[in-house]
């Protein structure tokens, strides 16, 4: 059985169809890449899956349970974690406290929460920054913080909105390595990613969106050679 199943998912904003009849499935331990030009509906899809937006039609089931009508916090407690494209650290809380908020859905014991938060910070390589405040971090560090925070909720499925976006070349390999380590540990993920090289190295399967519709789905190689994907997104460089 698939971990996540999506059928006929549709979301309209006025006359604009942001997601049009989207269907796909994610198996346990798999990394699904999500590509598409700006406005293709990738972030909207994340918002629909995590309860930040209500779909107009369609069906989402996670571990055999419908997610429709659930609030974001309920979906988080069911085991779906996410990061945001526009990073949102809690600026006036320390890095450590940021991550503790994620752990606290499992325990009310602050000592336990702190231990697990430090573990997550160690994992993402941000342990030294534990006392710093959110707004003092670089973009790369903030991405790590968001990842640590989402991991602290112990998700079964992690939705990552852009690994490489806004990150300088120097910090990128570390971040990719981080996602790879998560993958090795069997974390199931859906990743939105614009950098094709990054995506090809991480994803088992790729879903291409264009103007709210699914235009292709397959292995990274198949997607790279798909005529529709090349026309709409990758451009002639890949032809």
């Amino acid at each position, binding site marked *: 059985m698939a971990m996540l199943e999506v059928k006929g998912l549709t979301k309209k904003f006025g006359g604009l169809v942001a997601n049009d009849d989207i269907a796909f499935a994610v198996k346990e331990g798999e990394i699904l890449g999500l590509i598409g030009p700006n406005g293709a509906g990738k972030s909207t899809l994340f918002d629909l899956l*995590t309860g*930040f937006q209500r779909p107009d039609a369609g069906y989402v089931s996670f571990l055999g349970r419908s997610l429709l009508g659930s*609030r*974001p*916090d*309920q979906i*988080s*407690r*069911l*085991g779906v*974690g*996410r990061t*945001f494209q526009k990073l*949102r*650290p*809690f*600026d*006036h*809380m320390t890095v450590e*406290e940021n991550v*503790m*908020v*994620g752990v*606290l*859905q*499992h325990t*009310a014991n*602050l*000592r336990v*929460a*702190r*231990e*697990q938060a*430090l*573990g*997550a*910070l*160690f*994992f993402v390589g941000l*342990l*030294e920054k*534990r006392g710093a405040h*959110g707004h003092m971090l670089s973009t790369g560090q903030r991405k790590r913080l968001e990842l640590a*925070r*989402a*991991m*602290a*909720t*112990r*998700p*079964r499925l992690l939705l990552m909105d852009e690994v490489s976006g806004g990150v300088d070349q120097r910090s990128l390999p570390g971040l990719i390595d981080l996602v790879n380590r*998560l993958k090795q*540990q*069997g*974390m199931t993920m859906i990743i939105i990613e614009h950098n094709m090289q990054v995506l090809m190295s991480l994803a088992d399967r790729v879903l291409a969106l264009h103007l709210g519709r699914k235009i292709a789905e397959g292995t990274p190689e198949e997607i790279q050679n798909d005529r529709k994907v090349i026309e709409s997104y990758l451009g002639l460089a890949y032809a």
Partner: protein
Amino acid sequence: MRSRTPAPMIAALGAAEREPALQDALNEPARTPWRLRTRLLGLAGLVALLAYPFVLNAPFPQHVMIMIFLYALMAQSWNILAGYCGQISLGHAVFFGIGAYSSGFLFATFRVSPWLGMMVGIAIAMAAAVAIGLPTLRLRGHYFAIATLVIAESVQIVFQRWEFVGAASGIWLPIVRENPLLNFQFNESKIPYYFIALGFLSLVCLAVWYLERSKAGYYFRAIREDPEAASSLGVDVSRYKVLAFMISAGFMSIAGTFYAQYVLVVDPETVFPLTLSILVLLIAVMGGVGTLWGPIIGAAVLVPLSEFTRIYLGGTGGSVDLIIYGALIVLICVFRPVGLLGIWKDWRLGTAVGGAKNRGNA
């Protein structure tokens, strides 16, 4: 969903616990313990507070301190909702009025002990917070502030017309000589009021202290910082907003009961005014929002200012204190939005760094 099987990632985290850097981090205390000097200062402050009403045994200095405690109590209540949870209320006088009317009405009509009346007041204030909070806390940012402002004004108008509770003339609490403690009335001396106010203030500060070390406190701050990110981490945002509102309203109503017993008159003009809601906000902002000590410092600075201007300028100076407040707040907001507490912390940090530099040069 608490008993979910842990994701594989956590197993790996367990293995990482043998890493020295992580081990060091795990061993260090979550908070730096107070230094000896701070402890001694705290002890001296406590002794001074306990001795104050006996040393300065005159009504006016005692009254000023009681007012500082009362306003610090209110500012701290407001701080729980606004400073920690980020929901700016402009109508907190409602809960003050509810506290004052609940105990006042029950005492004047049925001779119910104001202590019991206070409990009733807390319950009604919390219920009102739920009733007001459920629809309005869904509103974002400024809309909640406007909604609370309008609701507070409407409640005042209702009480001005409501004959059952004395309409515009309010409730005059009967003066009772026997059993002062049970009747929460001390006509001979202000000293009991001094200690009761100090006790209530300690209670709310203890609550904030505890909140800072609890799951709810972390959730409140996460909601203040970014409600959407908080909800993505499993925080039930509306539930915790309402919880913050309830705690805040409960303490505010305690202040109302205290005030009713202190002046023995309750009327809509004095317990539901917009100026009270604003004053409570100003004190907290002045001292530093979202901190334990901010509201206390704010009250210690602003309340004497208002009491003294009232004395020196008499009836004509009724609003001078508000003008001064306004000017101070503008200065704070423009130059240092962190409040007095933040300014002091920065100054100390600055001198500490400077001191270290000087030592290095020597």
